[in-house]
């Protein structure tokens, strides 16, 4: 029996959207078969190249630990010192581009075609993209980042041989407590506000546009159809997708590394569990096992449930700290921080002639690379929520709402810790290491052992939600945009994310993880810049 429906070619355009006509068939480059008893359906070069490189990488780091430690120690400063301006310029372009689209007539284009109606409410999907995209970071940096910037700014600047050796943002605020708080909060919000969400929005918008309006597969290369045409299905596209896989995998491994060190610090603080690589490896292994259960249960049965539980817990912790902490100071601080952000934004985002080299290279450039490496992953989640929204509606929601949530989070957690220093003279959180600051701050509030335990649970579950949703996204990209590839493939990626996190932690610790994020973020920044151009071309042919 032959039937028309067995023809997998992209058919004639139907409906009101502007479907791109191409001879490419989704899944045409896929290997479908089985390896022994395990079935698979993978995109040939993308899966094989990215899978083989990552396996090779894991073995290299395990076999030659000393050599790889030296290498990673050199890599991160080498890249940030050379290319910090590039990350800065690119991130500024993304923000300006999003703002331009909001006010331009392109803002009227509806994702999914003129008559499309929204598929989802925002709540469940926002929970997922937060839990996946920023969860561990919010736990790790919620107290530690505002506190670090406040302390360094208060400490003032220090110049040796014409080079700033301090880590303070901009010109610091030596000895001026109020100014140091404002500068510290502004610098933190700068890293968690408009810029990261503009980066995510670019990827999400291009995926949504080329998937829902143009009918191309749900994979990064589809966004480049207007630039490369049919070549996008060849090696050009393979390279783009492979870069996206690397960026996601190393971005994920970094967050997992942060999560493991922080959970370890918290367990040590609460129960005296020893701090060290052994505990971290055990933590990563156990948590990866939980993530495995979650990916095997799927998007609705695993990932979504865990994300919603986690967002609920995080919200309870936020409200708790807000109420028992210095409530009034936090609320006035929230407004004040927002104003400070607006005031310092031009100076903080300036790419050239920066004197605060440690801050701009060590913090900002690293953050931009980290967000960029996360962008394929978070972008894909946002793309799925956005069908049926107009470009304007979509960008306003993706830029503003998550930015405000992050500002609130930082104001509550960081604000409380800073208040402890200024008003109570408690410097426990200020003196502690980055991963311990959260627990030191909670220790000063009532019910400390309960909230610290909730903090550890949150880190662990955020770890799980990052790992499982990351596996789903990498699986989709390496299956050529198919979302129904066999489950064992997800299992493979989930295990390897854990493995990469472990070997990077062993071979050079967090420095190794950060070095890999930056070096995979760099080529992907070029990809994102081209994506802006492709979005413009794609929007131009749509009905406005």
């Amino acid at each position, binding site marked *: *029996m*032959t*039937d*028309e*429906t*067995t023809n*997998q070619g*992209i*058919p004639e355009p*139907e*409906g009101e959207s502007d*479907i791109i006509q191409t001879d490419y*068939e*989704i*899944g045409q480059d896929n290997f479908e078969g089985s390896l*022994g*008893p*395990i*079935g698979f359906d993978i995109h040939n070069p993308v899966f094989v190249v990215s899978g083989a490189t990552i396996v090779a990488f894991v073995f290299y780091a395990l076999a030659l630990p000393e050599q790889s430690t030296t290498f990673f120690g050199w890599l991160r400063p080498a890249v940030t010192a050379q290319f910090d301006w590039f990350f800065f310029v690119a991130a500024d372009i993304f923000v300006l581009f999003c703002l331009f689209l909001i006010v331009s007539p392109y803002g009227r284009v509806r994702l*999914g075609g003129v008559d499309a109606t929204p*598929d989802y409410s925002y709540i469940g999907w926002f929970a997922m993209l937060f839990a996946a995209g920023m969860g561990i970071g919010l736990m790790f940096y919620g107290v530690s980042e505002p506190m670090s910037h406040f302390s360094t700014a208060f400490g003032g600047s220090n110049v040796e041989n014409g080079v700033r050796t301090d880590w303070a943002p901009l010109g610091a605020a030596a000895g001026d407590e109020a100014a140091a708080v404002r500068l510290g909060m502004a610098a933190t919000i700068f890293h968690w506000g408009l810029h990261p969400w503009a980066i995510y929005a670019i990827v999400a918008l291009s995926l949504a546009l080329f*998937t*829902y309006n143009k*009918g*191309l*597969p*749900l994979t990064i290369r589809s966004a480049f159809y207007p630039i490369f045409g049919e070549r996008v299905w060849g090696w050009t596209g393979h390279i783009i997708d492979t870069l996206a896989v690397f960026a996601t995998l190393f971005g994920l491994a970094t967050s997992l590394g942060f999560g493991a060190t922080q959970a370890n610090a918290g367990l040590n603080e609460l129960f005296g569990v020893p701090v060290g690589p052994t505990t971290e490896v055990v933590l990563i292994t156990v948590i990866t096992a939980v993530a495995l259960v979650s990916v*095997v*249960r*799927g*998007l*609705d*049965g695993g990932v979504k449930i865990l994300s919603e539980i986690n967002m609920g817990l995080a919200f309870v912790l936020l409200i708790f700290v807000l109420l028992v902490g210095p409530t009034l100071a936090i609320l006035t601080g929230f407004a004040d921080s927002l104003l400070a952000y607006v005031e310092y934004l031009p100076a903080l985002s300036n790419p050239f002639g920066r004197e605060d080299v440690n801050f701009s290279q060590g913090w900002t450039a690293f953050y931009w690379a980290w967000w960029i490496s996360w962008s394929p992953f978070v972008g894909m989640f946002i793309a*799925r929520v956005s*069908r049926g929204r107009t470009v304007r509606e979509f960008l306003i929601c993706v830029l503003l709402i998550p930015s405000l949530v992050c500002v609130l989070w930082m104001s509550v957690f960081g604000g409380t810790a800073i208040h402890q220093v200024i008003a109570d003279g408690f410097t426990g959180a200020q003196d502690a290491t980055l991963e311990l600051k959260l627990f030191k701050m909670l220790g000063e509030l009532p019910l400390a052992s309960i909230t610290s335990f909730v903090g550890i649970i949150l880190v662990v579950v955020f770890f799980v939600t990052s790992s499982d949703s990351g596996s*789903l996204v990498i699986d989709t990209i390496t299956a050529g*945009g*198919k*979302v*129904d*590839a*066999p*489950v*064992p493939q*997800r299992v493979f990626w989930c295990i390897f994310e854990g493995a990469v996190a472990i070997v990077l932690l062993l071979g050079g610790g967090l420095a190794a993880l950060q070095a890999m994020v930056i070096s995979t973020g760099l080529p992907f920044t070029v990809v994102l810049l081209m994506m802006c151009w492709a979005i413009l071309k794609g929007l131009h042919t749509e009905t406005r």
Partner: protein
Amino acid sequence: MFTKIMVPVDLAHAARLTRATQVAAELARLYQAETCYVAVTAPTPGPAAHNPQEFAAKLEAFAQGEAASHGHKVSSHSVVCHDPAVDLDHALLETRKEIGADLVVMASHVPGVTDYLFPSHGGRMAKHSKVSVMIVRED
């Protein structure tokens, strides 16, 4: 004996289902039953269609094609689910209840070792469905 037969089909691989669809059509003629072809898709573009609407249209066309070659009464029902790789079985079980089918005819592969870890769709269906399920081996 049967009034409505549900036949789950994979639109991307419709050609592989010859035996199952043929058996279903013959049973339908024997019992004067309606055959409802069911397929599951994600909201994203897939090998079979660009969007769920087009998917539903193609499934209906497939059903009509079956009717034309076997002369039985057909209908079609497409299901959209977020994560078909995992939720397929559940979606099929729910759909069976929803359309009120009293027999399921579906294709399945010859079982292997991995079926202990990841059971086949046909196997799950037979295990959990309240009505008769006929599994047709394709190879």
